């Protein structure tokens, strides 16, 4: 991007022969202005009418295949405890209503925020005495889709929990941190340039309204962390580890940023 030359800088540069090794700008923690609440748009607003139609019709939305698997997992007894999700939580339609809209949430045991996926695994480990689901595994995505569906149409409601505050702020910083060989932050694209075209594709605002999503690119369903990993590898950064605290912090900030927006799970995205 070209920009106006700064006169003061020119004078300095003229005087100095700069060797490449001396070129040393500090990594920028940018102050890109966040999107005003009334200007926020779901990723579905940026996709084609066909993709929106696919999301709107449960009979043709392929993500519903995972939701149905999740429904089975909910009812199936498992683990040493021989207990199903339903044995404790009853009807998901009642007990899980609004739950996905409130994650990540603070976990008192670990004194850290946990994502919904992590919460499900904590439940499996402690209450069902079963092995946790592997990140991005079919059952992990299936149960997350099923639980997520129970919040469809509800507003994203991050918990008002003081203990989350430092993690939320860390997530905000990460969102603004320029990363990777291409030296771009999340905010560079998704706060400052949303609606613009990157290689012909519109840049959405990056609101986590529909996860897990069925991405046409993936030809399958995937988690928010998988999508974040895509972005990080896209700017040639080293992605955070699955279930790392950094990813949870970013998820926390994204939830706060999307507060009040409507849950669409399971969404379709290109």
């Amino acid at each position, binding site marked *: 991007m070209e920009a106006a030359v700064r006169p003061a800088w020119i004078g300095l540069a003229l005087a100095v022969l700069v060797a490449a090794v001396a070129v040393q700008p500090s990594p920028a923690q940018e102050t890109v202005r966040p999107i005003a609440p009334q200007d926020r748009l779901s990723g579905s607003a940026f996709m084609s009418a066909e993709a929106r139609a696919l999301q709107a019709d449960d009979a043709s939305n*392929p993500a519903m*295949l995972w939701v149905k*698997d999740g429904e089975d997992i909910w009812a199936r007894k498992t683990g040493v405890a021989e207990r199903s999700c339903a044995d404790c939580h009853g009807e998901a339609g009642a007990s899980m209503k609004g739950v996905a809209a409130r994650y990540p949430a603070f976990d008192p045991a670990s004194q850290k925020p946990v994502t919904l996926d992590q919460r499900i695994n904590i439940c499996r480990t402690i209450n069902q005495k079963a092995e946790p689901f592997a990140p991005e595994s079919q059952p992990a995505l299936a149960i997350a889709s099923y639980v997520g569906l129970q919040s469809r149409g509800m507003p994203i409601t991050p918990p008002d929990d003081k203990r989350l505050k430092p993690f939320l702020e860390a997530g905000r910083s990460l969102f603004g941190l320029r990363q990777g060989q291409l030296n771009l932050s999340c905010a560079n694209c998704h706060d400052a340039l949303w609606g613009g075209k990157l290689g012909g594709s519109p840049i959405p605002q990056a609101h986590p309204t529909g996860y897990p999503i069925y991405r046409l690119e993936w030809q*399958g369903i995937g988690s928010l962390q998988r999508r974040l990993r895509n972005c990080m590898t896209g700017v040639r950064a080293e992605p955070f580890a699955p279930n790392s605290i950094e990813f949870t912090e970013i998820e926390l900030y994204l939830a706060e940023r999307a507060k009040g927006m409507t849950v669409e799970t399971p969404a379709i995205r290109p």
Partner: protein
Amino acid sequence: MGRALINVPATAKAGDIIEIKALVAHVMETGYRHEVDGKPIPRDIINHFTCAYNGVVVFEADFYPAIAANPFLSFTTIATETGVLTFIWTDDKAEKQVETARITIT
């Protein structure tokens, strides 16, 4: 094979044209892709689909690798009598997935 989702109206009047939607979980591996080490990934697609209405085939499809993963079909049939619609997907390994849906004629 995978899970299937069938959408058929539970009831219809005789003579109604009803829309049927059928979605099945399948990777639809094309046979044109390779692992990083160059090893080809063998083709694994659903190659055939039939829909029978009380035993009579009313719709049939041949799929090629250009059909998207998790194949979707929407087609129509005339509601004639109360009974069962049977859906059969057959893949390259000759495995069959069979699903049924009841329809009541009012």
